[in-house]
Each structure stands twice: as C-alpha cells, then as structure tokens.
C-alpha cells in the first residue's frame, strides 16, 4: 500500500505543481496576485474539451491548442486589466482587486454560457489502461502528468536562468524603468510572460481535467488556494520551489489521509506547511528581498 500511496502522492503533487507553475511565473515576474489564473486553467480545459468532442482532434493537439487558447486569453486579460495599473505603478493590491472583479465576471459569464455541469472527455479519448507492477497501478494519464510537469519545470528553469529572454524577464521583474534603459521592450516581454503563464495554466487544465475527468468553468477556482499555498511555500517566482512544494503538499495530504485520518488531511497539510514558513519566512527557495539598510 505504501508504494501505491507514494505514487498517489507524487501524482497529486505533480498536479499541484503543474497548476502552480504559471501562477508563480505571473506572480514572480509581473508582480500581480492574479486571481484570473484559475480561469485560464478552466479555459484550457474547456477549449480542449470542445476540440476533442466536436473537432475530434487527438490528445497532443488538444493539449497544445488548449494551452495556446488559454495563453491568448491571458494576454488579452492582462492587456485590458493590468496595463493601465502597471503604467501608473499602482502596486500589487489594486491588481489583486481588479482580477478579483474580473474573475467574478468571467466565471459568471462562462457559467451562464456553458452551464456548470461537469463534463468529461470522450471515454476512449485516451488509453485508460494502467501499468501494473504487483499491486501498484499507475495510468497513462498520470505518467503523462508527472512527465509533463517535470519537463515543463526543466524548460522553464532553463528559460529563466540560462537564456537572454530569461534574463530580460527577471530584470523586468525587478525594475521596469531600468529594464527599459537596458533596451528591453517591456511591453513585449509582458506579453510573452502572460502568454507563457496562460499557456502553462491551460496545459495544466487539460491534463488535470483529463486525469480527474471533471471539467467545468469553476474548476480553476477550487485549485487556487492550493496553488497559492504551493507558490508561497516554494518561494515566489521560483520554479524549482513550485515543483518541490507541490510534490511535498501532495505527499503530505496523501500520507496524512492514509496513515492518520482523511479528515485531518487538510489541517495537517496546511499546518505543516505553515510551519515551514515559520522556519523559512520566504518559502523554501524564496530569497529574502535583497535590500540593504
């Protein structure tokens, strides 16, 4: 049982991490607590669902296009909601509030339009067979989720830390005006970052929607609390941190549920993770703000 529970924890943790990747990018770089992120997650899943059902596209195309659609929505939403605030240097909290209002409107609108009933991908859409090693079972989709999560973490890490674009992104994260003085086209980078984080959210939505077979407009909302926990515990804007915190959170929840009590799952998981914050006040990998007196 332990082996299976560890697999369960890993998969659950990977879904948390997958969800959190785009969020931490958006948060760490664009410095907005963007509550619309959950909506991009839903958009990815819903578009993919539509493509799979009505157009009959295969899985890889659906994942990709779902992600792209979410990325485009993210660019538009960011452009409409946040450019103005960014220009006036309004700070984190007003952008939180704007996205709060936007999320209310967007979810409600899509609920009116699409209904809130849970939908799923066609039954034969992915091979539902599972690998079995003794008692241990892991499905194809789960393997896909774990692999995609690790791959995306790797890609993103390389992008941010070893490429010119990454350098520009990090510079922008820190000081927009000075980034401009370096010849960085800030508006373009902002679009790139929004797109990439929307894309990550959308891909997460498709895969997690596939795994749990439950797609509806509000699916992103219920992930947000976990998502925030993961990016905070990992350290804002840190890709490795999101991965490790996600997996830890998943493991914690699963192990608590199986060996302590399922009703204590959330309390133990949250409690333990809050304790981590007490010992590392800026998360596992978050640096203390580099600021000297």
């Amino acid at each position, binding site marked *: *049982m332990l082996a*299976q*529970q560890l697999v*369960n*924890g890993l*998969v*659950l943790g990977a*879904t948390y991490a997958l969800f959190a990747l785009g969020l931490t990018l958006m948060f760490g770089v664009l410095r907005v607590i963007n509550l619309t992120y959950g909506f991009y997650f839903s958009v990815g899943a819903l578009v993919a669902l539509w493509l799979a059902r009505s157009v009959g596209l295969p899985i890889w195309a659906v994942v990709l296009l779902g992600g792209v659609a979410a990325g485009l929505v993210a660019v538009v939403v960011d452009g409409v909601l946040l450019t103005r605030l960014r220009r006036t240097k309004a700070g984190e909290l007003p952008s939180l509030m704007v996205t709060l209002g936007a999320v209310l409107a967007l979810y*409600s609108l899509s*609920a*009116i339009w699409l*209904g*809130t*009933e*849970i*939908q*799923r991908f066609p*039954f034969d859409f992915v091979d*539902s067979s*599972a690998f*079995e090693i003794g*008692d241990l*079972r892991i*499905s194809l989709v789960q393997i896909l989720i774990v692999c995609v999560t690790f791959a995306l973490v790797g890609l993103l890490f390389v992008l941010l830390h070893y490429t010119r674009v990454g350098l520009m992104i990090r510079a922008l994260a820190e000081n927009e005006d000075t980034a401009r003085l370096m010849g960085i086209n800030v508006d373009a980078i902002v679009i790139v970052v929004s797109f990439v984080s929307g894309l990550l959210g959308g891909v997460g939505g498709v895969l*997690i929607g596939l795994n*749990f*077979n*439950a797609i*509806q407009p*509000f699916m992103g*909302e*219920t992930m947000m609390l976990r998502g925030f926990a993961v990016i905070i515990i990992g350290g804002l804007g840190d890709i490795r941190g999101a991965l490790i915190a996600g997996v830890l959170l998943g493991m914690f*929840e*699963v*192990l608590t*549920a*199986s060996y302590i*009590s*399922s*009703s204590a*799952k*959330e309390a133990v998981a949250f409690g333990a993770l809050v304790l981590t914050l007490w010992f590392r006040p800026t998360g596992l990998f978050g640096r203390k703000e580099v600021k000297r007196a």
Partner: protein
Amino acid sequence: QDTVTVGAVEILSGPASGYGIAIKSGLEMAMDEINAAGGVLGGKNLALIVEDSAGNKDQAVNAARKLIGRDKVPLIIGPTLSNEMFAVGPVSNGRKIVTIGTSTTAAGITAMGDYIFRTALPEADVIPVTFKTAKEKLGVKTIAMMYANDDAFAKSGFDSMKAAAEELGFEIATIETFGSKDSDFSAQLTKIKSLNVDAIAVSALVEPVAGILLQARQLGLPETVRFIGGNGSNSPRLGEIAGEAANGLLVGSPWFIAKKDELNQKFVTDFQARYNKAPDQFAAQAYDTMKIVAEAIDRAGSAESDKIREALLATDHTGVMGPFKFTEGRDPASAEGVVVLTMQGGKFEIFE
C-alpha cells in the same frame, strides 16, 4: 387581482447553480401546465418569482426577505441547500410564510417551525431501503464508508448510512472523509482497497461520487466491490461522467426517470422537449412541489399563507414521484415509492 404569485429562492449563479437551475426548470414547467389548465382559485394565473441565492446563506436570506417584504408572496419554495434553509427558515417562519424545501434533505429542517415543509424525502427514509436490499440480495457484510465531511447534506446522509449499517449489523471497516470540492480520492481508496470490503457506501454530491468511481476502477478495485450511493448519486450525470466505472452502483430513489407510469413518461418527454435535456430528480421534485402548492392554494380557497399551510397539511397528491402526503412534522409521509436502482452502462435501471 388576477394572479397568485409565489416565490422561490434557488442557486442560479456560481459553481452550484446546476441544482438551482434544474429546480427552476421543474417549477416553471409545472407552473405553465397549471396555468394552461386554468390556473388556480378559479382562473387566476399562478406566477413565480425566482430569486438567486448564489449558494450564499446571507444572499439566500436577502432573497427571501425581498420576496416576503417587497413581493408579498405567501409562500416560498426553496432554498436549494440545507445550509441556506437553516438561515432562511427562522426568518420566513417568523413572518408566518410557508417555506417548502424541495431539495433540502438534512436532518432538523422542518423542526425549525410550523411553516417549514419539505417535499424532498430525507435520506433517513431512503437509505435503509437501499442498505437492506444490498444485504439481502448481495450478501454484503463488511463495508467502508466515505463522505464529504464539509457538506451538511452529505454529512447528514452519512449519519443515516451509519445508523442503517449498524441496524443491519454491517461491519464498518473504515470511515473515510474528503472535501466536497476535492478531486483526488486516491489515498482513501487505496486504503479501502487494502481492507477487502464487500461494498463502499458514499455520501456526497454527484461530482465527487463520479470521481471516486473513476479512481476506484483506475486503482484496480475489483468490480465485485459494490458502491452504494446516497441521494447525491441519484443523478443521470453520474453515468455521463463515470461511464462504465459506475456499473453496479446501487442507489435508492424516490423517483426514477424510466418509471413506467404515464404521468412520469409525459413529464420526461415534455421536459426533454422543453429544455433539451433529461430531467433529474431535482427537477422532478420541484415539478411535483409546484403542483402540490397549486392544489393547496385551490383547497385553501385563498392565497393567504396561513390557509395554504392548513391546506398543505392535508395534501394527498400523486405526482411523478408517486403518491405524496405530509406527516404531522411536515416531512414526506412515506418512503413507499422508493425504488432501488443500479447503474448499468451509464444508465440507471431498477435493481432486481
């Protein structure tokens, strides 16, 4: 005055709006039929104002207050959730306005006051029937139980399950909980799998139940392990989402879409034609409730709340759910109409 207006408070927006919208559909269809057939009180039209509660108890109370204070309705149908009802009940009861829950199955609802009714059959009446069937026809002895412990409806269903299980002498191998918005149940199911139970009883709304079924099969829980559902599992959506994974699930229901009687057949066809989707039990219960209300108004001979209340107590109606009466305590009188259904190939059928 040529119309009689009644009110309803349902969830029309937000994540749980599916339930409220189904109820609203049932109510409106019944209302139109009543009006087409000559209305109430000898020719007056029946009208309905549905207010949104967004699933929030304060908004539910605000909506009820608006219906009572502004629209002066004598009667309110709803609200959708038990939690909302616990907040609305004292207010409407205090104003002596009849309030009828069509979907609130938690314990203690009608105890709030003389004006609070419900047409939803409490789980306490349905579940023993299901469990008994499972014991007698499938020889179930040990069971595991799962429920959403943050949801009043699921919790109260679970309480009934536990009582029934003890009554029938089942051995309860474990009780596992989850959150009503969870989507991962692998930890609990893995644990249950290792306990070799005969059946798993689940009390929750349809979304988590579907997730549990899918993940159970995915984790290789043998098909011989039967799932027993509560009221939440009694929805055609279960088959749509969980598909084959739901095969063999047992659920007791006061209503069944394929029930052969003419009334029900007509309801299902009309509903399908009007809303372009199949009705669920929430719509069916709402449909019957509206009919019951119209009859009560006619019998009361007036649209005053007190008189409607008296008339309701004397209800003797046969609707799509079967024969219906209220108890002294304003709950549905009998669970005779309950049938045990099983899921096969994504559809419910009567369990033989």
